């Protein structure tokens, strides 16, 4: 593998890792703070991608679609938390699994009713539809670089929010010990709604950003959901820092595995997860 090729793969793996992080950050917080196993998290990713498809189709502007789509998904998350998830924080994990599995069916059907079962594509915005020439034969698309930048900015923003702000302190307190945080005067009910809505929005945002790169298709959430759980578990449940590390690790292993060991590439991530759990049963960054 020469240097140009290597850099391309490295960029791809970081980009994939950051995308996974956007999804896993919400999942790990929802898991860590509310104790909810949310199998429907992948559906929010799918809904995001379909929102990007529908809104871009209507207005012809991806940026506008992303802004409106994010607002819509925040509203959806807030509503779902209030109507449904709120009542499941103290139920057993199995009940949550059953509930969110049922929700996957519902979301998929709603998707099918609204947008059909076909595979769609979303065009790359014109300003970003060019590529950087690396060698005579290799080039790198600008949209991927743009996505890399956006994801990095979001990851950085999330890190600042969680580690530097008062709200972030409350979130960390909630993840560490929910009851104690409440006793200290944190409005835990509002915090839960906020974290849930944020998680949904991040997942949907990941879907919207990936839409121009991959196609938009039914059940696109389920594969990514499994990967997210892998990331959450490797990183340690409830740890955003862990999720970031694990997401980048998974991105590296998966991308380079596909290049170097194509026959066993898809297995490698799970081998990594099994090894981490056997060595550190609670993940890398369990508080």
């Amino acid at each position, binding site marked *: 593998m020469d240097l140009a090729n290597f850099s391309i793969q490295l960029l791809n793996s970081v980009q994939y890792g950051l995308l996974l992080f956007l999804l896993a950050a919400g999942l790990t917080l929802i898991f860590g703070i509310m104790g909810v196993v949310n199998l429907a998290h992948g559906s929010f990713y799918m809904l995001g991608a379909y929102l990007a498809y529908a809104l871009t189709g209507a207005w012809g502007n991806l940026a506008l679609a992303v802004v409106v789509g994010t607002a819509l998904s925040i509203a959806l998350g807030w509503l779902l938390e209030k109507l449904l998830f709120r009542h499941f924080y103290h139920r*057993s994990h*199995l009940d949550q699994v059953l509930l969110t599995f049922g929700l996957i069916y519902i979301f998929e059907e709603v998707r099918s009713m609204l947008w059909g079962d076909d595979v769609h594509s979303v065009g790359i915005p014109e300003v970003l539809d060019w590529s950087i020439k690396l060698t005579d034969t290799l080039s790198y698309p600008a949209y991927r670089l743009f996505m890399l930048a956006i994801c990095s900015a979001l990851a950085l923003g999330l890190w600042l929010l969680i580690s530097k702000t008062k709200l972030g302190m409350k979130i960390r307190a909630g993840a560490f010990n929910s009851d104690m945080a409440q006793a200290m005067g944190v409005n835990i009910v509002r915090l839960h709604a906020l974290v849930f809505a944020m998680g949904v929005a991040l997942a949907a945002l990941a879907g919207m950003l990936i839409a121009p790169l991959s196609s938009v298709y039914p059940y696109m959430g*389920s594969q990514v959901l499994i990967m997210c759980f892998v990331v959450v578990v490797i990183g340690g*449940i409830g740890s955003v820092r862990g999720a970031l590390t694990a997401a980048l690790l998974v991105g590296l292993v998966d991308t380079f595995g596909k290049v170097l060991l194509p026959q*066993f*590439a898809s297995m490698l991530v799970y081998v990594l997860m099994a090894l981490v759990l056997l060595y550190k049963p609670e993940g890398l960054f369990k508080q």
Partner: protein
Amino acid sequence: MSAPQAHLETLPRSVQLLLALGLLALLAFPFAGQDFYTQMVTRMMILAIFAMSLDLLQGITGLVSLGHAAYFGLAGYVLAFMSPADAGANILTTLPLAVLASALVALVIGFFVVRTQGIYFIMVTMAFAQMLYYLFFDNKGLGGSDGIYINVRPAGLGMDLENKLVLYYFTLACMLLVYWFLRRLLWSPFGRTLNGIRLNEHRTQALGYASFSYKLTAFTVAGGLAGLAGYLWGAQTGYVNPELMGFHMSAHAIMMVILGGMGNVAGALIGAFGFELFMHVFKDLPKLGSFDLGKHWQLWMGSLIVLVVLIAPQGLMGLLRSRKQDD
């Protein structure tokens, strides 16, 4: 991880009656139903075996495996590999071998996974199942993503599974055998210990039981029984592919067990039939004006599942019991 759920270990009369009636219906069914429905019920019975095998882990031992389909699919593959291209495989050799292969792989994987607890157990079992899934998915030598056809169904012991009726009654016999075996196991000293592990593993250990060996044995037996179901699945459909080991198949099994009610084997049985039955009913719903109800079966199925969690946290069997308590 979760609070111990109430179990109907001793089945109330109403459930016993229901099961007996169900058995009579199953025995008589092929004479009344069309060929299509006979095959559908065969499929339900196979899934019931699969669900019961998972209940041994999930409901009785308290180990929620999200990778149980791996052992299900593996046995199907063993059958596919051992089937000659132009003749049926011998049941007498392939069935035990397939079940043993699944049990053996479960033993090896179990050796690693039963050390973990709660949500981590769920995730590691999933990870190992995904490894097997991708091993078969990415390697052409193992059939690849297309899977393998089983041209002629297995035969032996004076039976030819190519005959739909023979397959039906053979599957029914297997299902009854597995049910009987697991109910006996549930009330054996071994089953009592597994129950103890679910309720409080530390206490069970303090009483002198080596919980690791018990859990590993349960994991292995459950894997073998899932293999039996997978073998029958391969024999029925004449086709195996990696999806049989996939995440959705594992999740499907968990759903069936929770839907019926965990920890008493009968619940898993009822859950499997209930799940499949509801799915078929929803898919067959008529058109209402221009609105095709059947086409949107996922919406009804999803709503039903959400409804069950909201109003019947102990599954369908729990619903039966709470009504009994009201009386």
